[in-house]
């Protein structure tokens, strides 16, 4: 681990004061379950670490006047899991529950979870995030969608697909002291094209402070992860779905977002279109799953993930509709 300066700001303004404009010079510590390991392996070598865990405004869950729920970036996942405000968003809680590790849930934060670095083992072994290693190599956990460019990794966030399905937004501050922006979580992630880009759109002096979930307003939602163990392993594929039904059981509005299949959470409008205007049964859910992976372009070793992604979508749709997903 490289020696580093440690900053523990107490306010949002102080955060921005200690962030550097130079890429990679500062890293935000928001729990540290990922960052510390990366630093120990010298994969991330900041000059300064900025711990945002002591900023009170980033540690609360609040109901806003319009009924939206604001969650601070430094709120730990266990608090979200236990919070009654979030009961109406089972897709979020299911994703957190799936982490299967009390330690990660109690130490990890929402901001850290959505900003965590990819699990790509080529990256974690110092071979870089982008490149040709994953093309023909050990790519069984890599992307099956959005993988035409140099990025073959999958976005690791477990919660982001649910946030996108639920139309959540992130509040970002910086780079200027007064700068503040709100953007949909769906626009927060990007597929890097070169090593100078991160997996999200934040600039070096920008920090996520809050995630805002709009009122559930009659929607139902669910997350289904294909996990091969009860441990804290990452899912092999996942999907979060939000549905709005009319009074006759017909889907009026749908969002289908897959996780662990592409360099970003993957919003499948094809699957959503197939659902809108129909009631949910296993056949319709299956068709939505098929539509979600129709454009899949698996690598040499991950054809099986196409099936898993399809099943994840099917089961998330069934769960969101209150039906038996029919598997583990």
């Amino acid at each position: 681990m490289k020696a580093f300066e440690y900053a523990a700001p107490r306010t949002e303004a102080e955060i921005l004061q200690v962030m550097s404009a130079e890429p990679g010079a500062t890293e935000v510590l928001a729990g540290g379950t990922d960052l510390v390991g990366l630093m120990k392996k010298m994969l991330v070598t900041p000059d300064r670490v900025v711990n945002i865990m002591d900023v009170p405004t980033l540690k609360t869950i609040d109901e806003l006047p319009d009924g939206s729920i604001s969650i601070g970036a430094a709120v730990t996942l266990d608090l979200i899991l236990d919070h009654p405000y979030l009961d109406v968003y089972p897709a979020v809680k299911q994703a957190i529950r799936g982490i299967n590790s009390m330690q990660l849930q109690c130490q990890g934060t929402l901001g850290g979870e959505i900003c965590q670095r990819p699990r790509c083992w080529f990256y974690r072994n110092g071979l870089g995030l982008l490149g040709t290693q994953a093309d023909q190599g050990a790519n069984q956990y890599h992307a099956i969608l959005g993988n035409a460019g140099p990025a073959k990794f999958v976005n690791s966030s477990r919660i982001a697909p649910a946030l996108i399905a639920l139309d959540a937004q992130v509040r970002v501050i910086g780079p200027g002291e007064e700068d503040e922006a709100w953007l949909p979580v769906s626009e927060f992630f990007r597929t890097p094209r070169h090593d100078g880009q991160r997996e999200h759109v934040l600039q070096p002096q920008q920090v996520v402070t809050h995630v805002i979930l709009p009122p559930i307003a009659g929607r139902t939602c669910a997350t289904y992860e294909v996990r091969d163990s009860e441990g804290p392993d990452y899912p092999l594929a996942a999907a979060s779905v939000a549905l709005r039904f009319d009074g006759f059981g017909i889907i009026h509005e749908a969002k289908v977002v897959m996780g662990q299949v592409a360099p970003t959470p993957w919003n499948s409008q094809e699957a959503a279109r197939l659902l809108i205007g129909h009631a949910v049964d296993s056949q319709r859910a299956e068709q939505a799953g098929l539509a979600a992976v129709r454009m899949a372009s698996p690598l040499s070793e991950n054809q099986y993930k196409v099936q898993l992604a399809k099943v994840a979508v099917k089961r998330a749709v069934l769960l969101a509709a209150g039906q038996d997903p029919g598997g583990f």
Partner: protein
Amino acid sequence: MPEEYSWPSREASAVIGKVHDRLDGVVKSTGAAKYTYDVNLKNQLIAVAYGSPYAHCKIKSLDVSGAEKTPGVVHVEVLPQGKKDTEIEWEGELLAVVAAESEAAAREGVSKIKITVEELDVFADESNLTAAEVAGRTGKGGGKAETVNEPGDDDDEDEFVEKELQRLFDESKYVLEGEYGIDAITHCCLEPHGATVQWKDGKLEAYLSTQNVSGTDEGFARDLELTADDVHVQCEYIGGGFGSKFAPDYWGIAAARISKATGRPVKLMLQRDQELKLGGSRPSGYIKVRLGADENGVVQVWDSLQWGSSGFRGGGVSHSVIPYVLVPPNYRRVSTTIKSNTANARAWRAPNHPQACAMSQTALDDLAAKMGADSYDVFLANLVNATNGKAEVYRAEMEVGAKLIDWKAKWHPHGKGPSRGAIVDGLGMGLHTWGGTANTSSCLLKIYPDGGVESFCGTQDLGTGTRTVCAQVLAETLGLEVGQVKVNIGSSRYPNSGASGGSTTVGAVCESHRRAGQDAVAKVFDLAARELGVDASVLEAVGGQIRDSANHQKRISWRKACSLIGLKPLEVTSNYRRGDESPLTDSGVGGVQMAHVEVDKETGVIKIKKFVAVQDQGLVINPKTCKSQIYGAVIMGIAAALYEQRVTDPQSGKFVNAELSDYKLARLGDVGEIVVELYEPDSERIRGVIGNGEPPAISPKAAIANAVANALGVRVPTIPMTPKRVLDALAKA
């Protein structure tokens, strides 16, 4: 001296055969126990090693100047294999060691080492025999053929075998062909390999994480040009070895050299990725099988070609245990070794047996599927082929296991069970054998005039309960409570005791401690006999007393008897030498295991519902620690069946999942209900103590693979059975 060493009968035993909590349970569960990793010496340096980033290369230069200039770095040592022009044959091979004031500084120093190499061809796809042949990486691994009919004097032996096997296949009622495999896995010790060392007056003190306390002093001495008496190895507690921790290893030697050079204690524990890369791996094995069976499903002929690798030196699974346990009268087995650019394997809990079991008892189960028969019946019928003389024991153990898992009620033909949504279930079994003979062991027993009892033995407790067993044996022998006996182990200064490998430890310490106990108590009897006015031969030690076995009123307390010893403690050292005939121990165990699994056909995810392990091991000293061994072995087996896999990138040869976050293991939620039954009828108990550390880890892979095949009606040929492999197998079917 007693006329003959022996164990008390089941009825007469007060301590052995009884459940007793581990003596070190509290200190371990509270964190008070000091493992090697916990040993920190005053003024010590932390050493971190630099490993080759290339799987196959020739070193052109290794520049450590950046490391030497790093603040906090005190010493950098280039290892012999880090020199120019050395050929490196696997990723992670250690090339240099950086010792610093802190781990962070040492890591930073390591990050500044620069290497230039000539890259050489990499081969790491051990499952691919054709590719290995094309790459020129194969070698002959030996083989053997046996036929009931023998060739005539004029026959060419190979031709005869070929024709004879073909004739037998032609006559077979059932012929089955299959391909099976099991990938390389690593030992994954939670406590990495390593040592903390310091020199005092020219002598080396080494706190080493080892399975071989009595033997590693010689290892240090040899490489450091000392004599073994100048080395003191200590290992009070160890966090896993599984067959991989028998030597100081070259990094331990490097730590000692750096300590000498710097005049400071040095702590070098492998980093997590290094532990997975260097700490030990189990060879891979793949096989093509053709077998022929009669109308009852009894295999009469077996023909197999196997391949696999133990790393860059070739190797693989020994053909000598193929087919496994159930060996038909006619067979041919041929083995090809593969040199791959992976670390050299180390002994892994029952070397060769888990792979052999998984590569041959799966074929037997596929035979049952082909016959449309109950797998249980086919295994039962094939017990006639058991080559270890344990057919009747297996038969009895199968009965016990079948009842515990409710085999008859739950059985359905392969792939024909009911489904619940996408979920189907299945049953499978496997059986195994192992030696478990007692190792060499000596015990120094001290009995103090005030009644105190203390033993010394250079053995080690791998977490298996060795300490507790030593105390139980002595307590039984001396007629005391377990808490009255102080057991000292884990130091090379204590009397020699063999390495803990091959399931030899429980037999070893039972031999030495029972002998020492009996030898010592005989001397106490002599003293007590004079006091009681009886012949020493009538005395027994029971319940804290020495008494006349025929007249219990003639007795004195243990403490009073010990007061007769005199002013100095009574010291007895008793020995057992491996291989000597003894009524106390034996070798040769068996076990039967059965699995009930559920499989999600849409995702390929497998869950263990119930797992039954029935195991014989002769006389059981402590049913609790004995069962714990089996629980652990089964959990390890479940991990290997479903999750564990050394993933080596075929292009670069990099072991890409060499972190516990990526190297998947079973967690408690994954192991289902595990039921362990110790099979210990009088016919087994009378054999004496036999080790069971390894055997229960053998069958889980076969049992689970067979259960999955029963659930799906399709064989998932290669272990671990990941969702990818399950879905691939279903897609092919």
